[in-house]
């Protein structure tokens, strides 16, 4: 079933805060094999001018995923998640994600289109602190293979 294109431009309500923990950052850094001390040692991070340990750049996906999932699992939008592959992903950072951050995300549906029998959903998550400081923007393209209507 094709996606409902009236969802283009839709903005979802802010998500519940994600609290960035030191041990979660360490676990993520270990999992991706990045040994930089700024992820593990607050002193090393402060030496680089950060207030506490920071997260690897792609840790942003951990925070962005629950934001994006609002659309991915929105029954009204109708994305068939079993057929979804990740097409593109981009992050733009105002500053690094830092231990102790409480991050809130607002999801925007930027585009919905069909190409070669696939449904293609472009989403943008604007993520910042509860106080409204922008931390990063995540833009992603999700492709549902073979779900669009044949033309």
């Amino acid at each position, binding site marked *: 079933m094709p996606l409902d294109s009236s969802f283009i431009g839709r903005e979802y309500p802010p998500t519940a805060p994600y609290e960035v923990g030191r041990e979660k950052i360490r676990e993520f850094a270990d999992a991706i094999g990045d040994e930089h001390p700024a992820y593990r040692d607050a002193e090393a991070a402060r030496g680089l001018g950060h207030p506490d340990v920071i997260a690897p750049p792609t840790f942003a996906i951990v925070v962005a995923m629950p934001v994006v999932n609002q659309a991915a699992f929105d029954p009204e939008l109708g994305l068939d998640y079993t057929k979804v592959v990740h097409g593109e992903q981009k*992050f733009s950072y105002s500053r690094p994600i830092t231990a102790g951050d409480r991050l809130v995300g607002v999801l925007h549906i930027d585009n919905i289109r069909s190409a070669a029998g696939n449904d293609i959903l472009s989403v943008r998550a604007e993520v910042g602190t509860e106080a409204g400081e922008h931390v990063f923007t995540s833009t992603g393209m999700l492709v549902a293979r073979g779900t669009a209507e044949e033309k």
Partner: protein
Amino acid sequence: MPRYADVEAGTEIAARDLPIRRADLVRYAGASGDFNVIHWNERVAREVGLPNVIAHGMLTMAKAANLLVEWAGDPGRVEEYGVRFAKPVVVPDDDEGATVTVTAKIAKKLEDNRVRVDIEARSDGEKVLSLARAVVRLD
């Protein structure tokens, strides 16, 4: 830490062969919260038309960024990072797993002490990340 004045467009800054094994996928699933079965269940992966279990695209994206971070010296200097997932990285169930060959080069010097770094990632000779680009702020 590299200095803006000293870097030149066209210079290769890093190149490495990165192994990705089944255990890495399990570990990344746990750390990232992405438990999509195509990353750990061969039966389901084949049922949906894949040749075998595939790596999380985000894991490949993350591992490619490690070279960037190592070169920049401070992960906080990465201002932008984006990729297109061109092809899945198929991870066989053996001790070697898959190998992703990553190279990074300075594509362009930008304003305000920033550089654009272009990354290439290949597995089995095929490009797995395309249009992989980062903007890094230098001193």
